[in-house]
């Protein structure tokens, strides 16, 4: 301290003390602010199993709007929601649920959104079917028993908007050669992310899981358009129809597009469309489409 006072030379010690004190405080607080900022950045990463209540837009802005009061939690009649505690991976005090524990029951009157005093849960959300809490994904096709050819469809049956959010896609069972697979397929256009499917999945560890949308959803390039969708929308093809290919081939030769390549002989009179596997005109498969026919047939298979 004595050396300090010697060094001041002309500077009033009180003034000097004030300056060093101020600088010290400013430096300390600056450090705290920086740490807080960095911590906040990390708190923004939502773990894959944490699903936000209905009416939450993107995670970053939710953390600016939610004041962590828990009124949404209190008004949820199914005790779905909880507030993140210190030590949880979710930003402290913010509401979330874990579908495998308690999924959202998709209340018609959306009491959680009504309870929110800040609008962090968007009050413009009036129909629960429009909620996008997350997106269900059949994450493990190896364990989902539907992929093994077994009948399950539990996820399909519990879905509050089954048929739209989740459908069953019939596929040929290669293994048995004669059965169908009833594959659950989730459609992001309708799935609310309520998590009832994940809750109901009969496996020890669910094969269908709800993830935050940012995690679950891929995206085509923004400029991508699917030709067939555009065609249905417009009612006609938007690109020029295929012109027959012109090759400058030697006399008497032709090009076969099915893989055989250059061959001799005249082309078949009219290029018939390739046979569609299950088109009605196609030759009937050896098995009737009605499984009962096969079962009732004398002598078994």
């Amino acid at each position: 301290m004595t050396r300090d006072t010697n060094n001041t030379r002309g500077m009033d010690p009180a003034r000097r003390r004030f300056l060093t004190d101020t600088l010290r405080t400013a430096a300390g607080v600056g450090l705290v602010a920086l740490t807080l900022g960095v911590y906040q950045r990390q708190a923004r990463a939502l773990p894959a199993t944490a699903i936000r209540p209905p009416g939450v837009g993107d995670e970053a802005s939710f953390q600016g709007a939610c004041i962590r009061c828990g009124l949404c939690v209190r008004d949820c009649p199914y005790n779905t929601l909880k507030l993140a505690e210190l030590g949880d991976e979710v930003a402290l005090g913010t509401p979330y649920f874990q579908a495998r524990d308690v999924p959202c029951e998709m209340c018609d009157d959306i009491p959680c959104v009504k309870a929110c005093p800040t609008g962090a849960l968007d009050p413009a959300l009036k129909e629960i079917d429009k909620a996008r809490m997350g997106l269900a994904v059949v994450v493990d096709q190896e364990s989902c028993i539907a992929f093994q050819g077994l009948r399950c469809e539990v996820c399909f049956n519990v879905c509050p908007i089954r048929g739209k959010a989740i459908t069953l896609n019939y596929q040929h069972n290669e293994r048995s050669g004669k059965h169908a697979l009833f594959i659950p397929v989730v459609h992001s256009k309708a799935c609310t992310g309520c998590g009832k499917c994940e809750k109901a999945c009969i496996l020890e560890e669910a094969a269908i899981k709800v993830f935050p949308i940012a995690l679950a959803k891929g995206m085509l390039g923004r400029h991508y358009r699917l030709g067939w969708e555009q065609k249905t929308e417009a009612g006609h093809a938007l690109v020029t129809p295929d012109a027959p290919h012109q090759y400058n081939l030697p006399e008497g030769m032709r090009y076969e597009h099915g893989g055989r390549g250059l061959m001799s002989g005249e082309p078949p009179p009219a290029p018939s469309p390739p046979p569609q596997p299950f088109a009605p005109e196609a030759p009937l498969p050896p098995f009737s489409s009605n499984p009962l026919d096969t079962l009732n047939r004398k002598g078994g298979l």
Partner: protein
Amino acid sequence: MEPGGRPGEEAIRVRGWFPAHRYLILRRVSQLAILGLFLAGPWLGIWIVKGNIASSLTLGVLPLSDPLVLLQVFASGHVPGTAALLGGLIVLVFYLVVGGRVYCSWVCPVNIVTDSAEWLRRRLNLKGSAHLSDKSRYWLLGAILLVAMVTGSVAWELVNPVSMVYRGLVFGMGMAWGVVVAVFLLDLFVGRRAWCGHLCPVGAFYGLLGEAAVVRVSAIRREHCDDCMDCFAVCPEHQVIRPALKGADKGVGPVIMSGHCTNCGRCIDVCGRDVFAFTTRFSNSSRQPVSGVNHKSEVSS
């Protein structure tokens, strides 16, 4: 205070133990009753108040929100919904009337923790105190608003011990007990009143509010002061007393005008000579007629 004696001994002798702890007891009752109202729902199923100290709904009609949390929401670039704004306004007006830091001494649960640390500190006769500027809290207040602005999130609420403890008690503590212990140890070993008196930005905010508040403590019979220093010993913000208590010669009025007086009333409790009393900011003329308001009856009882 006699040498080696404890502050308030004279008051206990003159007025009895209960009157000499009146405001302390009332404050604890108030703090615990408010907490009890919040806990009655989750613990007993009596839903008088829902939510927590950040925002709550009483009896389904009265919204109350913490104005500092709302300020952070604004800083993060969001506009809180009307319920939250109305709640914030009600709370703001309330503390503008009763005193800003009434929040600290009559509501905040951390106050019980830091008061206990201070009590133990006195008991163990711990003297050392780190040099912390009591202006640090304003810097911290600015810093948390800045961080909210930069990150777009209510970042302070990730670490705020005040809301953490309240939310923890009502919704589940997680590891928040660690924070309670940390604050206790900080006040016990690092510095006297280090948290509430130097660092807490919540206290800083309510202190600023308190500058304009109506209800205030006044050294209304300051000429009776016998310099026992008991009030200085118990006051959590003892720098606020001197201007009012010793300002008679300088023409300063007897009302404690600093926003950092918490209106805890401990000075009223411990003064054996009945110097202090609750008044309003409007009774602050320096030439106070004293004889008319002398409650000698209480002293002689």
